[in-house]
């Protein structure tokens, strides 16, 4: 490829945002050639999104800052160009599906770039229809964004950049906000588009295993504003770099490592579907599995939360939740999974008293609380929203946490004591006099959890607590929740993250189409292909590995892996 001219070329490139003290990108040298498919990974703050924004021109044309060195895209020096000139060459799909859906309907949104280019209407409709066909959304042209799923909105966004006949497609965290099955579909669609349009594709994503569902040519690993590694996927996975830089490697790979299989001998280590195991490696895996011993812990506490035939319709007619019967024991940590719109959030809102069910009952410690107010319910069952910014309304951490117990007749000293106690539990005590704006996302999340815990609930429900977080922040948040759980608080987590479900929760409640379709251990859920399909989940690669190695009880294999993984990490 060396004789080809690169389509993207960074030369001694640095960038510093105006509000930052130090450069976010440092001395980047990188060539990307036409037709390549590149995966850029890195922990949060590594500069991977900034790198993407340099390619599409948001830097320097929307975010101000200082550029040094050179970056050419399709032969154009970006800093002397304009965002408009670049946008006809680079199509960007951002991660927020609603923020980039600006049209009132699918058709309008896809046509948006053409409208701005003053394309005449007849031609515009033709191009729009074509792009819609490419992504398979042509049947929904007149639909409004709120009638579409997250995956459909993302398809619209893809079509919206395809109309421009771009040479480069840039995806910024395409898997965030999507349920597992939809994420898989998105990766497949990207591959299809790449083949059909012969574009260069750059994917920025830290969920490596999911991103590698389809092959890529190279993986770039970023850390602290630099590219620390630029390797073929197989080489990258065989190196210890991903772990060193806080990126989660594929689970099957970790399993092979635990089994002391020689990963250098495994062909196609970068793709679970093409993975080829020799007899020797299969034996290592089997031997490892047989050597594992599992201890089962059984929770036989009393039920703390029960629902009975819970049904709900926002408009009183169309039921989004039908006859839900759930029983949760005190001290459990469990997950609720299923596709977007399956009723997970609605279920939580009913349990917390935000909405009133048309039918059915909610019991807390055996007592019927269906008709109690939000405020009353909050003293027993707390709800933490996905986006901490939607909950934070104070400037100081102390005030934010104290809000929930103001006006309930406590003295100033009592309030202070309870807030301090909660802050200590949440590891925020030393920040008590800080302004919230100075905190990281993970710390803000903790503040919101603290602001709920202060009211003394025995159950807390969290909506996607780790969405968009890298491995370090994910672990930080989840270990914190695990600690809370150990202290006796029942934790319910709504999530799309299959790993979270396996790793941290003892069972999963599965929703599909407003119904509870199953309730069993996460490992059993992910080894049940029919259920996986029904609830838009994605089977774990550990299941594939177990099958490949002829292990007859994949569920047990997955459980062994999770146990082993926990021990290994506690060891560290």
């Amino acid at each position, binding site marked *: 490829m060396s004789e080809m001219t690169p389509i993207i070329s960074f030369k001694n490139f640095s960038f510093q*945002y*105006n509000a930052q*003290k*130090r450069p976010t990108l440092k001395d980047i040298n990188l060539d990307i050639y036409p037709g390549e498919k590149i995966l850029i990974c890195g922990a949060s703050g590594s500069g991977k999104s900034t790198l993407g924004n340099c390619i599409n021109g948001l830097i320097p044309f929307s975010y101000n800052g200082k550029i040094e060195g050179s970056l050419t895209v399709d032969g154009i020096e970006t800093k002397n160009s304009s965002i408009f000139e670049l946008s006809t060459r680079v199509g960007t799909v951002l991660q927020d599906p609603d923020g980039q859906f600006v049209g009132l309907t699918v058709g309008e949104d896809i046509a948006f770039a053409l409208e701005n280019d003053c394309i005449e209407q007849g031609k515009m409709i033709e191009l729009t229809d074509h792009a819609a066909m490419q992504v398979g959304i042509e049947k929904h042209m007149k639909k409004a964004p709120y009638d579409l799923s997250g995956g459909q909105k993302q398809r619209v966004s893809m079509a919206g950049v395809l109309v421009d006949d771009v040479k480069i497609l840039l995806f910024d965290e395409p898997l965030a906000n999507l349920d597992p099955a939809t994420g898989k579909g998105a990766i497949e669609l990207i591959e299809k588009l790449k083949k059909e349009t012969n574009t260069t594709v750059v994917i920025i994503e830290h969920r490596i295993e999911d991103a590698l569902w389809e092959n890529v040519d190279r993986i770039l690993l970023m850390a602290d504003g630099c590219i620390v590694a630029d390797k073929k996927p197989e080489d990258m996975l065989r190196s210890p770099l991903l772990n060193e830089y806080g990126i989660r490697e594929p689970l099957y790979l970790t399993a092979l490592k635990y089994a002391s299989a020689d990963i250098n001998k495994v062909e196609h280590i970068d793709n679970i579907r093409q993975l080829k195991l020799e007899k020797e490696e299969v034996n290592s895996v089997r031997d490892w599995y047989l050597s594992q011993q599992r201890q089962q812990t059984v929770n036989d506490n009393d039920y703390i939360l029960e629902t009975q035939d819970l049904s709900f319709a926002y408009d009183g007619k169309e039921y989004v939740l039908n006859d839900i019967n759930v029983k949760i024991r005190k001290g459990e940590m469990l997950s609720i999974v299923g596709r977007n719109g399956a009723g997970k959030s609605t279920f939580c809102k009913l349990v917390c008293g935000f909405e009133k069910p048309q039918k059915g009952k909610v019991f807390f410690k055996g007592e019927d609380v269906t008709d109690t107010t939000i405020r009353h319910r909050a003293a027993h069952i707390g709800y933490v929203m996905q986006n901490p910014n939607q909950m934070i309304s104070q400037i100081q951490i102390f005030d934010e946490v104290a809000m929930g117990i103001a006006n309930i007749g406590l003295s100033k000293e009592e309030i202070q004591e309870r807030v301090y106690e909660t802050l200590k539990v949440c590891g925020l005590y030393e920040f008590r006099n800080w302004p919230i*704006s100075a905190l*990281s996302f993970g710390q803000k999340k903790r503040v919101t959890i603290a602001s709920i815990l202060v009211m003394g609930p025995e159950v807390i429900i969290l909506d996607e607590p780790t969405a968009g977080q890298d491995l370090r922040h994910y672990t930080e948040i989840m270990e914190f929740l695990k600690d809370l759980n150990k202290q006796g608080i029942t934790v319910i987590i709504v999530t799309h993250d299959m790993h979270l479900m396996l790793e941290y929760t003892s069972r999963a409640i599965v929703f599909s189409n407003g119904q509870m379709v199953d309730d069993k251990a996460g490992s059993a859920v992910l080894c049940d292909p029919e259920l996986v399909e029904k609830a838009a989940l994605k089977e774990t690669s550990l299941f594939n590995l177990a099958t490949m190695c002829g292990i007859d009880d994949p569920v047990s294999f997955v459980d062994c892996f999770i146990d082993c993984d926990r021990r290994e990490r506690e060891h560290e």
Partner: protein
Amino acid sequence: MKNDAVKKVVATGIGAALFFVLARFVAVPSGIPNTNIAFQYGIQSFFAVVYGPVVGCLSGFIGHVLTDMSWGGVWWSWAFGTAVYGLIVGLFAKKINIESGEFGKKALVNFAIANCLANVVAWPIIAAVGDVVIYKEDFKIVVAQLAVAAIADFLCAMVIGGLLLYGYSKTIAKTGSLDKE
């Protein structure tokens, strides 16, 4: 003041949407019978200070007209009042300079002057003249009515808008101040 042409277009749209939602769906009683607190003017004054006079003016005007339409029938004189209100508050945006990350006494005084002036011009003058021209209403009565509205909106915008601006100012990073922990 944020100075980016596209951002202003978006801010106008989102500002109008906020205006609409608060005016149409959020009814918080003010204590006076049949009168709700007009949060939308607090939001509008916030947008006027953050994004300047054009956004202040248009976001309010669009929000107001859409709200009226959803009830059936636009009250043009008041819609123009809302537009002028946002415009005048927005003219003080540079002076208040919220992007500096400070919303201190000086800024607060400027915000108060802006609101005072804007409410006087918007309601007892613009909207009143409109009502008299269109509905031939009694000028004295209209002015009296609108003066009450002006005072109520002044208070609402000062308290709500002021607190929002203060909260926002605390989230702004000062140039060259951010460093990794």
